[in-house]
């Protein structure tokens, strides 16, 4: 069964019960992606599949055969951080760091949704595709990622600086 994970083609057999999260962590040792609640409530396991953010804990890995999966390890490395990772450091967007890979993958996926004009629960006009990443839009769109340290203010600032540098706070 083939997957493309962080631009690398991987061929392996697996138990159909295995979640995409467990495949990443337990079989491929890509431990950047975290297991929080394991039931889709916290967002720590967020990865990108063909550019779209999903909860890898709720995903059976077999369903994603042939897909391109990007984890935090594929977005940046210690020597070459993603610009959003740099912004998280700059704005104290984390304390313990456990939710951070999920926050970052989720924000990258969210930025794509904004670019495509996907509306949210706080979008006023459904006829427009031009959505400003305002404070309210950002908080609504990131509500699937929890931070129990309470670093949300720094997280919001980091995401806004990276994806909407001109938006009003």
């Amino acid at each position, binding site marked *: 069964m083939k997957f493309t994970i962080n631009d690398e083609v991987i061929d392996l057999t697996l138990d159909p*019960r295995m979640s995409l999260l467990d495949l990443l962590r337990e079989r491929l040792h890509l431990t950047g992606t975290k297991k929080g609640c394991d039931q889709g409530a916290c*967002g720590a396991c967020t990865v990108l599949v063909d550019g779209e*953010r999903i*909860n890898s804990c*709720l995903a059976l890995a077999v*369903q994603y*055969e042939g897909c391109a999966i990007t984890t935090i390890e594929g977005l940046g490395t210690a020597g070459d951080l993603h610009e959003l990772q740099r912004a998280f450091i700059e704005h104290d967007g984390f304390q313990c760091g456990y939710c951070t890979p999920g926050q970052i993958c989720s924000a990258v996926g969210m930025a794509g949704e904004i670019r*495509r004009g996907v*509306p949210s629960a706080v979008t006023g006009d459904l006829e427009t595709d031009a959505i400003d990443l305002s404070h309210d839009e950002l908080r609504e769109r990131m509500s*699937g990622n929890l931070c129990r340290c309470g670093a949300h203010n720094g997280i919001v600032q980091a995401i806004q600086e990276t994806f909407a540098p001109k938006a009003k706070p």
Partner: protein
Amino acid sequence: MNPFDYARAGDAAEAIRLAGGRADAKYLGGGTNLVDLMREGIEHPTHLIDVSRLSHEIAARDDGSVLLGAAAKNTAVAADPVVRERFPMLTRAIVAGASGQIRNMATVAGNMLQRTRCLYFYDDAARCNKRTPGAGCDAMEGFNRFHAILGGSDACVATHPSDMCVALAALDAVVHLQGPQGARSIPFAELHRLPGGRPDVETELGTGELIVAVELPPLAAARHSTYRKVRDRSSYAFALVSIAAALEVGADGKVADVRLALGGVGTKPWRALAAEAVLRGAAATEETFRKAAEVELQPAVGLSDNGFKIELAKRTIVHTLASLCPGVRT
């Protein structure tokens, strides 16, 4: 999680063949509910037929209708320009539910067939007639703040959790099915059953029957529609009360057309036909909206913790209808 056989279907006919008429086979969409239930030991299918790669098409037709492929993702439906223009309540309902990640995974049919989030259904140490027919119900005397005030029975008061389905109920959606006995279509309102004495039997689907598409019939009033959701926190929470409403007011100030459905309060997505009957042809005023709400909630039954939903539902109906009617302030 119990072992199961996994197979991916290329089309509906293959899916039905792979399911083989087995009662313990399940179709798998995005997995956001079913995988969780399997991990919790509530669902234990022996065969999973992956139907997530069936039709994703969202087809806008010239007659004003839209056909949603059963495997279309919730995000794709919400973002579709024609859905936003013709049926804004559906977009609003979908984006009011779950999180961005889950909406990217969840399919149209999977959303419709998701199970209740009643805590006693999820807790295998509790009694639950939906999980184990005849076992009893611990919600009745337990923590039932989130439970239904409409459509309940002595056996079950679990709510249907979907937001999207509330819009589908209001829009008179039609569900296209295929199964071992062939194809058929049923009104969305007939898809989900009231619990009665058998809360474990939740839908009209026969063994092996598969939802292949959902049709949104043309409805001029739906262009002027919305969805209002009231919940304990402002995002990523299930509804205490939600309202899908479409309202068309004539030049004479009277209600020319209306569709109304309620979420968070019913054991199934709750079409408010009694309220619609009061509204249709009546003056579009706050008094009329309140009267319609009173009539719809007249049969409501509150338990120890959820009685507040009765007044909350009435007020949310009035407020939501007023928001579609610029002359009426609440």
